[in-house]
C-alpha cells in the first residue's frame, strides 16, 4: 500500500516534469523540470533497491550536470524560444502519431515478456557500495580506466572550446 503510493507519486512527478520540459518556453524552466525528473528518478531507484545509484544520481546528475546546464543558460542569457517561421506542420501531424505508435509498440513488446511481471519488494536493497566496488575494480577495471581517460579528454576539450579567442 505504501509502495503503491510512493511509486505513483514519484512516477507522476517524473512524467509531469518531462511534459513540462516539453511544453515550457524558457529554457530555465525546462532545466528546473529536468531536475525534478532526476530527483524523482532517484526516489524510484531507492524503491528498486539501488541505494548507491540513487545517491550518485543526485550528486552527479542533479547536482553537477544540471548545474552546468543552468550556468550556461544564465551566462548566455537565453531568452524564450522564438516562433520560427519555418516550422513545418507536416512534422507535427505525422510526428505525433508516429511517436505514439512507437511507444505503443514498445509497450506491447515489454508487457509480453515473461520475466517482468514479478513484483518488486519494498526495502530489498541489493548490493551496496561494497558490492559495486568489488565488481567495479575487478571485473570492470578496463572500462573504469577508459572512462577516466574519457573524462580527462572531455575536460581538456571543454576548456579549449570555451576559451576566448585571442
Amino acid at each position: 500500500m505504501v509502495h503503491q503510493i510512493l511509486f505513483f507519486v514519484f512516477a507522476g512527478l517524473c512524467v509531469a516534469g518531462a511534459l513540462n520540459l516539453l511544453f515550457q518556453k524558457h529554457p530555465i524552466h525546462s532545466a528546473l523540470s529536468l531536475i525534478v525528473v532526476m530527483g524523482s528518478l532517484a526516489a524510484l531507484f531507492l524503491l528498486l533497491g539501488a541505494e548507491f545509484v540513487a545517491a550518485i544520481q543526485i550528486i552527479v546528475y542533479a547536482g553537477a550536470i544540471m548545474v552546468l546546464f543552468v550556468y550556461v543558460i544564465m551566462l548566455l542569457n537565453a531568452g524564450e524560444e522564438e516562433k520560427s517561421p519555418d516550422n513545418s506542420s507536416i512534422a507535427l501531424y505525422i510526428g505525433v502519431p508516429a511517436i505514439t505508435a512507437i511507444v505503443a509498440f514498445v509497450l506491447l513488446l515489454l508487457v509480453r515478456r515473461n520475466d517482468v511481471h514479478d513484483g518488486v519488494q519494498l526495502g530489498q536493497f541489493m548490493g551496496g557500495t561494497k558490492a559495486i566496488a568489488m565488481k567495479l575494480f575487478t571485473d570492470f577495471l578496463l572500462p573504469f580506466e577508459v572512462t577516466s581517460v574519457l573524462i580527462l579528454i572531455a575536460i581538456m576539450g571543454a576548456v579549449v572550446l570555451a576559451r576566448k579567442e585571442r
Partner: protein
Amino acid sequence: MNETIKLIIFNAVKILVVTHVLLGAVAYTVWLERKLIGRMQNRWGPTRVGPFGLLQPIADGLKFIVKEDMLPPGVNKPLFILAPAIAVVFGLTPLAVIPFGPMLDAARYGWGEKAQGLQITDVNIGLLVILAMTSIGVYGIALSGWSSNSKYSLLGALRASAQMISYELSLGLSLVGVLMMSQSLSLRAIVDTQAGGILHWNIFAGLQIIGFFVYVTSAFAENNRIPFDLPEAETELVAGYHTEYSAMKFAMFFMAEYANMFSASSIATLLFLGGWHPPHPAMMLGTEGSLAYALSGVFWFAFKIFLFICFYIWIRATLPRFRYDQLMSFGWKFLLPLALANVLASGLVIALRNT
C-alpha cells in the same frame, strides 16, 4: 499501543526536537557571533535587549516577520520565491542522518524491544546523502541571483556557485580518507570505530590530520564564510546574491547559512573528532544503553560543535578575505591535489597495515 504507533510517535518526537533545537541554535549562533566578534574588536556587542543582549535574536526575528516583503519589478516570481526555500530546506536536510548520541536501550524504559539510536534515521549511505544535499544547495544561490533581475545579484550568484562547486570536490575527496579508515558510509558506523579515548579519534589514530585541514577549509568555502565570502561581501558586490531580498526571504538565506555552518561542524565532529565519544571513556555518566549515558553523549557532541562554531566565528573576526582569482586557484591548484595526495597516502597506510 502497538509497535507501529510507538515507532511513529518516537520518530515524530525526534524530528520535532531536532528541528526546533537546530532553529533555536541558529538564532542564538547569530547572538554568539555578534558578541564574540564584538569582544574581539574591543567593543560590547548587543547588550541592550535583555540581559547580555540575550533577547536580541527574538527582536531580530520579530523585525524580519513584520518588515515589508517586497517583490522588485521584473523578477521571475516563482524562482524568486523558490530560491531561499531551496537554500533552507537543503541546508536542514543533512540533520536527518546525523547521529547525536549513542544507542538507547529502549527496553529499559518500556518503549519497545530494539535499541533506538538518537538519530532520525540511519541509512547505509549517510555520507553520500550529505554530499548530495550540499550539491543541491548550490541551486538556491544560483537561482536567487538569476531571478533577481539585477547585475550585482547575477555576478554574485555566479561567483558564489562557481566557488561552491569547486570546493565540493575537495570536500568529497577529504571524506574518502575517512571512508577508507572506517570501511563504511553509515555515519553511526564511522562514529563507532572511534570509540576509546581521544587517541582513537580519526584525526589521530586514523591519521587524517591533512584530511581534517582540507575538510575544514572546504567547509568554510562551501558556506561562503570568511575568508571565502567574496560573493556576499558588502564592500564588493553590494550584497551579492541576496541584494534584492527583504524581510523573511533574507532571513531564510541567513538561516540557511547558519544551518550549513551547523551541518558542516557536525560532520567534522562525527568524522574526525570522534562524534559523541568523550576524550576519556570514564567521562560519561551511567552505563551503556541508559538514558544518562545517551544524554552525556549528546552533551559531548554539542560541546564539540560549540567549539567548532566558536572557531568559525574566531576566523571571521581575524582573517581578511580572498580575492576571487586567489580563491579559485587555491581550491583547484592546492586543495584538490592535497586531497588526492591524502587519499593516496591513506590507501598506502591501509595496505601496509594489512600486510
